[in-house]
């Protein structure tokens, strides 16, 4: 059997606190092909962020293995660029320095100083942040911060880009703008992307496949939905596209009928 580019195999995750075991994820298996855009959607608390952290190597799975390009993932590394939920830029560095910190570390041997500078600028231009390179994170808007976060992750030339609810903290207009930008970057560079989201429209708009998680505890993959909409996708046209509407209602049905979030008593 040939393995997928990114392959999650029988991931279990449980935490133990004061001798009480709580399962977060059970038997999560998933294959992601090279260049594919995958979204993972589920109600909050279903362990989707935990899953992303396991792929990133920031959290260890209790059992199960993650393979990326044939290699076992057991520690964080620059081959999995993470865009964190709250941008996680270092406030004492400028926009440029935040990206160059990553570039200088990852390409210290393979690129010359001038090449690294060009590479930083290319990635900042890719997210249209080249103009603000000397600003500090506190001086730019939330959407701009997230764009720099994306530039930093892209600049590492990761094998897979991991987005952890990247647009969750943004207003709707900024969010739409950034979604378009991510689609454009994905079309240009053909990255493999795994995105965590709780926004149905975002998932359908961006993804090739949507992985729907059941509610925790002991969440598992409930269903995987193909989104057979041709790219490039335009959000205005999609609003009336029958495939879009079908996919959207399938996700909604899964989330709100079959796996309605049960309020914790």
């Amino acid at each position, binding site marked *: 059997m040939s393995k997928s580019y990114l392959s999650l195999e029988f991931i279990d995750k449980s935490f133990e606190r004061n001798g009480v075991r709580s399962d977060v994820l059970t038997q999560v298996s998933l294959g992601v092909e090279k260049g594919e855009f995958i979204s993972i959607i589920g109600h909050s608390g279903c362990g989707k962020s935990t899953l992303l952290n396991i792929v*990133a190597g*920031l959290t260890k799975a209790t059992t199960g293995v993650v393979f990326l390009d044939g290699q076992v993932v057991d520690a*964080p590394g*620059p081959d*999995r660029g993470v865009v964190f939920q709250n941008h996680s830029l*270092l406030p*004492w560095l400028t926009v440029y320095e935040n990206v160059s910190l990553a570039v200088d*570390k990852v390409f210290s041997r393979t690129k010359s100083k001038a090449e690294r500078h060009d590479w930083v600028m290319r990635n900042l231009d890719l997210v249209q942040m080249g103009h603000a390179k000397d600003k*500090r994170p506190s001086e730019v808007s939330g959407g701009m911060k997230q764009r720099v976060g994306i530039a930093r992750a892209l600049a590492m030339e990761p094998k897979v880009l991991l987005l952890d609810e990247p647009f969750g903290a943004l207003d709707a207009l900024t969010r739409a703008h950034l979604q378009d930008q991510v689609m454009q970057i994905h079309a240009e560079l053909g990255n493999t992307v795994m995105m965590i989201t709780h926004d149905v429209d975002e998932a359908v708009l961006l993804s090739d496949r949507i992985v729907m998680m059941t509610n925790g505890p002991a969440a598992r993959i409930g269903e995987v939905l193909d989104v057979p909409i041709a790219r490039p996708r335009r959000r205005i046209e999609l609003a009336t596209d029958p495939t879009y509407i079908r996919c959207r209602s399938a996700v909604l049905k899964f989330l709100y009928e079959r796996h309605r979030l049960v309020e914790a008593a």
Partner: protein
Amino acid sequence: MSVTNLNIKSDAAAKPSASIVTLSRAAPPSAGFRMPGFVKTLADNVLPPIITLAFLLVAWEFLCSSPTSSLPAPSRVLEESWALIVDPFYVGQGTDQGMFWHIFASLQRVAVGYALAAIAGIALGTLIGQSDLAMRGLDPIFQVLRTVPPLAWLPLSLAAFRDGNPSAIFVIFITAVWPVIINTAVGIRNIPQDYQNVSKVLRLNGYEYFTKIMLPAAAPYIFTGLRIGIGLSWLAIVAAEMLIGGVGIGFFIWDAWNSSLISDIIVALVYVGIVGFLLDRVIALIANAVTRGNVKA
């Protein structure tokens, strides 16, 4: 310095263990008449303290004007200590020096003791901020030791060093080191998980993590510790020098008291106050420059 227990959970959002309180100014009232910008700023900032000072001096003059008063009035201070005031660079025999040289000698001791305290404090603070084991081992001891008054260390250090100067430096060191240790440790414990994740994804090594993440992230806390430390150092040096003798502002005050030169003591206090204020401002300026205004003090 506020009392702080270092036994905080590392994920708890702990406040800096001690903070420096500065009074912020209320919004200036809208001026009824217009003045050129810099004149107005000058008038707004310089006039009120000058008026307050003048008022205090007048009150002091009035209260101490009777011939039987035990303390000299400002006019008598000027009269009696005029030589001291006008010639701070006077060089005489032994401890008979101008004010500048006394202050300079004290500052030298503070500089050495404080520099050692800053280095040791940041190093130890980093250690107990980083390692739970080190914290469990060292923190209880530090919490006890830091309550020992600075001067209580002096006899012990005199016994150990058998000399006044290193003893005074040691007292400065032991006074200033605790707030630096504690604030550094709290700062390092409070480094957000996000920054640690970033460093893990980038695979920063220990040295890179220390210089690129840990120090800048903890810098606002470290500088809070350093600012408290410099204030305490200056408090301790005067007391320590009273006991060890030699050239130094502390001994100068003690000597003046023994010679009943009360006016000289008052001049010396003015110097001590101004120098202490300047030391605090210098550390604050450095903090601002280094952390680019990120110090919330």
